[in-house]
């Protein structure tokens, strides 16, 4: 397999004028899990206000790519910069940078021993030092925005998947992140819950949030994405506008993948 050929950079990618400066930059990023080369020479730039959808077969490294951006996965070589700042290796500096990068997980990961409201206010209070009543007020406003304000005093386990994921989005938003990462946010949801989460995400995208979304939801990609990146075997194989990618995929691997998921 030729590594170099398939590597693309954002310079060639379509960008509309409303996009700002680069917020997430990945330069020659490589990572191995043992013998498995999960990220191969990844070069990717996400600009302020951009909504990037990463798509690809399972095991293609898209989740690892997403987790590497806030260093939940370490990388072997290359560099990752958030808003111009290189990602620190560990310690307080890393924690500070992570606070600016929101993350929404496939399995929600709400703090199980805390109420919905406490989940949302914990970060602002303990990381940003926001006063309790102000954090509470803002938390309730955010819960209202994602439509779960009436569940504020329940424990996460008392909510079903859709509402839990919306709380998780509110928890991320409470930190006022510069960019938000979504690691397959719909994959663990029952079909009837997907739309409610999708709507919240589309609304976020319309408001100008910078987003990196790992998903198979063509609906979201078509409605809200500025750019689609297709990954396979740890490489970025193709990137294009959603319309272009779904109607005229260039690479054979993308054609093959799309034929598999679009027939269902």
């Amino acid at each position: 397999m030729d590594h170099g050929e398939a590597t693309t950079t954002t310079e060639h990618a379509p960008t509309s004028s409303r996009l700002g400066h680069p917020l997430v930059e990945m330069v020659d990023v490589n990572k191995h899990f043992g013998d498995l080369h999960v990220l191969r020479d990844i070069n990717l730039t996400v600009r302020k206000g951009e909504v990037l959808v990463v798509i690809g077969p399972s095991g293609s490294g898209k989740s690892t790519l997403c987790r590497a951006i806030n260093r939940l996965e370490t990388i072997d070589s290359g560099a990752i910069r958030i808003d111009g700042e290189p990602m620190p290796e560990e310690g307080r500096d890393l924690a500070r940078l992570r606070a600016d990068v929101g993350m929404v997980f496939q399995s929600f990961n709400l703090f199980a021993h805390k109420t919905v409201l406490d989940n949302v206010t914990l970060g602002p209070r303990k990381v940003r030092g926001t006063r309790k009543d102000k954090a509470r007020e803002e938390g309730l406003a955010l819960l209202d925005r994602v439509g779960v304000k009436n569940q504020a005093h329940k424990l996460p386990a008392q909510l079903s998947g859709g509402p839990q994921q919306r709380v998780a989005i509110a928890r991320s938003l409470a930190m006022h992140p510069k960019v938000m990462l979504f690691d397959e946010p719909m994959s663990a949801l029952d079909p009837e819950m997907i739309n409610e989460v999708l709507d919240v995400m589309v609304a976020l995208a319309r408001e100008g949030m910078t987003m990196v979304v790992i998903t198979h939801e063509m609906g979201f990609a078509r409605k809200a994405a500025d750019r689609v990146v297709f990954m396979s075997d740890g490489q970025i194989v193709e990137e294009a506008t959603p319309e272009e990618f779904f109607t005229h995929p260039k690479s054979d691997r993308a054609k093959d993948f799309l034929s598999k998921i679009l027939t269902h």
Partner: protein
Amino acid sequence: MEQYLEIVRTFDVLGAFWVNIRLAFLASILALVLGSLLALFRISPIPTLRWAGGAYVTVFRNMPLTIIMVFMTLGAWGQLNFVLSRDFDTNFFRLAVVGLAVYHAAFVCEAIRSGVNTVPIGQAEAARAIGLPFLASARLIILPQAFRGAIAPLGNVTIALIKNTTVAAAASVATETSSVMRTMIEFSSSYIYAIFFTFAIGYLILVTPVGLASTYFSQRLAVRR
């Protein structure tokens, strides 16, 4: 019967139990603090601390309590002049508390670590993702859930600790139950069975509620996922 009651009064059996209760209470608190700290070491991102926590647990979990207790008096106090009180008896009592705590902290640490294993990795990742540093995420997210998942094993450690307070005799705490029982039997051997039962039932009364409480709270406080 009257003679038996006379013996129980002369030897202050209740007072002897009170000594063990105080030993158990103070040693549990100290062991809980020390054990939590060790557990924090063992899950910390710093290799040296992880190693230190592991070494402590290996050493003290595998050493007989009697040896630690004898060391507290003959070694720590006798040779190293480790004094915890000017008062002779209080000093031995406190040395015994420290010995019990040092030993049981290793088991507390392992109980909490088993509790940490009940907390899904996603909880720690979510904590890190909102920008909490290690100590804050341990204190606010991991340990509160870990303690609630560790109530049953912590209960077992507490039960063992209460019964092990009788080893304080080895640290020259002469007023505790096993020492008093031995003296009572020496003085009135004809009541040997009655004396045995007195202490056996005493411990049953003391320990049983701990087991019941730990079962109750481990279910009641379990983190729902």
